[in-house]
């Protein structure tokens, strides 16, 4: 039996900066469906990895394939057209535009009417625009912002702006959705409702997320990849990650890891 084609395949992906290897020959695959998390301590290279996948950072070496197609040399807008969506760690909604216009911008790659028919509002454009508005409203509905479609995006609360970013990325029904620290800066209640939202994306798209909040990750992920100093040190189911010595060492240092390992041998259960 041949394994299903991975939705995203990274091969030897590397990014060097002067005197620093931010991401070091990472091989990784994301299978279609479900939620895949990338975790790791600060500076592990998670965001650099994301930026390479979405095309904002050019890899120093390695290949990126989306659904079997090599996209390593493609500009971000071309990758968006191939079904890649993302949100940002620091919120980047278009603050001066309305909530609906934000979601419609997410559909830009799906609009095919030419400049002339767009500008003169010919029937083809009207048809397309109407469908786009419907799709954008559906995306807003998904994140619970349908009632605020005419608000100025900058007037939304922090949590709602994060939701809007997800709606904007989800509007074109991407195959792969990258969420860059979606729970950053959220209080526990907001984090909980975000977890519910991400769970509801299951079946609509495949989610690849970067996150610091471990409880959140364990709660919603099907698979976890751990990075440390740019290297992939572990990949597996969330339940096993906690007991993996390499991961504990990356997070807590080798002394604690050694003590925990010794404790485990003596029959004492490790904390957490």
């Amino acid at each position, binding site marked *: 039996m041949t394994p299903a084609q991975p939705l995203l395949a990274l091969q030897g992906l590397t990014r060097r900066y002067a005197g620093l290897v931010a991401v070091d020959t990472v091989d990784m695959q994301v299978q279609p469906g479900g939620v895949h998390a990338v975790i790791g301590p600060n500076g592990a290279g998670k965001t650099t990895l994301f930026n390479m996948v979405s095309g904002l950072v050019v890899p120093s070496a390695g290949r990126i394939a989306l659904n079997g197609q090599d996209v390593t040399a493609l500009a971000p807008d071309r990758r968006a057209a191939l079904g890649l969506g993302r949100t940002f760690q620091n919120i980047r909604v*278009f603050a001066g*535009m309305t909530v609906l216009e934000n979601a419609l911008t997410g559909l830009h790659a799906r609009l095919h009417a030419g400049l002339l028919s767009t500008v003169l509002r010919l029937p083809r454009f009207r048809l397309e625009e109407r469908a786009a508005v419907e799709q954008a409203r559906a995306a807003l509905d998904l994140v619970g912002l349908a009632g605020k479609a005419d608000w100025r995006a900058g007037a939304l609360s922090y949590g709602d702006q994060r939701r809007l970013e997800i709606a904007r990325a989800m509007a074109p029904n991407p195959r792969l959705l990258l969420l860059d620290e979606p729970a950053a800066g959220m209080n526990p209640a907001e984090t909980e409702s975000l977890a519910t939202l991400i769970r509801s994306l299951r079946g609509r798209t495949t989610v690849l997320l970067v996150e610091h909040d471990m409880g959140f990750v364990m709660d919603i992920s099907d698979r976890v990849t751990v990075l440390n100093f740019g290297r992939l040190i572990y990949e597996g189911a969330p339940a096993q990650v906690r007991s993996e010595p390499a991961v504990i060492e990356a997070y807590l240092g080798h002394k604690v890891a050694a003590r925990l390992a010794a404790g485990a041998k003596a029959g004492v259960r490790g904390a957490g």
Partner: protein
Amino acid sequence: MPTWLDDLLYAYQNVIHALGVNGLLALSMYVVLAVGQLSLGQAAFMGLGAYSSALMTLKLKLPFLLVLPLSVVVPVAFALAIGVPTLRLAGVYLAIATIGLGEVLRALYLNLDITGGALGLSGIPERAETWMIYGLLGAAILALWLVGRSGVGRAMEAMREDETAAQVMGVPIRRYKMGALLASAVLAGLAGCLSAHVSSFIGPNEYGFEPAVTILSYVLLGGLGTPLAPVLGAWVLTLLPELLRGFSDIRLVLNGVIIVLAVLFLPGGILPVRMRRRAA
């Protein structure tokens, strides 16, 4: 037409022509700022339009109705040539590069025989009519308005707000930047041709650094909300020196003070209305 109106139009025809031409220049600045590009090559495009069209009239004896559309050819070719390398630059670096290119052209006009050196070109027949200037200005406002309210305008506004986010959402930002630069070259080239054919004289210093900044100030004052805003800004700044003539010596100081105050207290311009987009 009543005699008094005729007299008025005649007496003020220089101002009336300048209002129309500067309106076109303001729009040529507006199109690049609308996609978030601080590109200051408008005076250079204008100069290329002015010199190339003046030469077509003087040397090739072409009729004006042919010269006017052909006046965009050289500016557009120049925009295509500089677009590829300069659009990789951002912010103030792009501004410096485009100002530098303008200065290179000014040095060329000064030193080439065909452009008349420091003396410029004179004796250009005054063939541009007021209706042509305002017809083109009206057409440009309408075209930019239609683009602005469409999905293309939405993507342009997104680029202006956050270029990276817009690109990740699928907006082909390089194509949009190039399109804006070409539109800017067309508008400034036409403005250059029209101004050359109403003033009968052009010289190298009309297209250097100072006019480049003046054109920018039109849009700073007017705002970016709709295409009407920069035109209004151009009109205020064109009329101000005329209205302040009574203050003779301190006229330019007052002019500068008004611009500074406007930038400080009207960050959205004097017409900060946002374009409404009907959602289908």
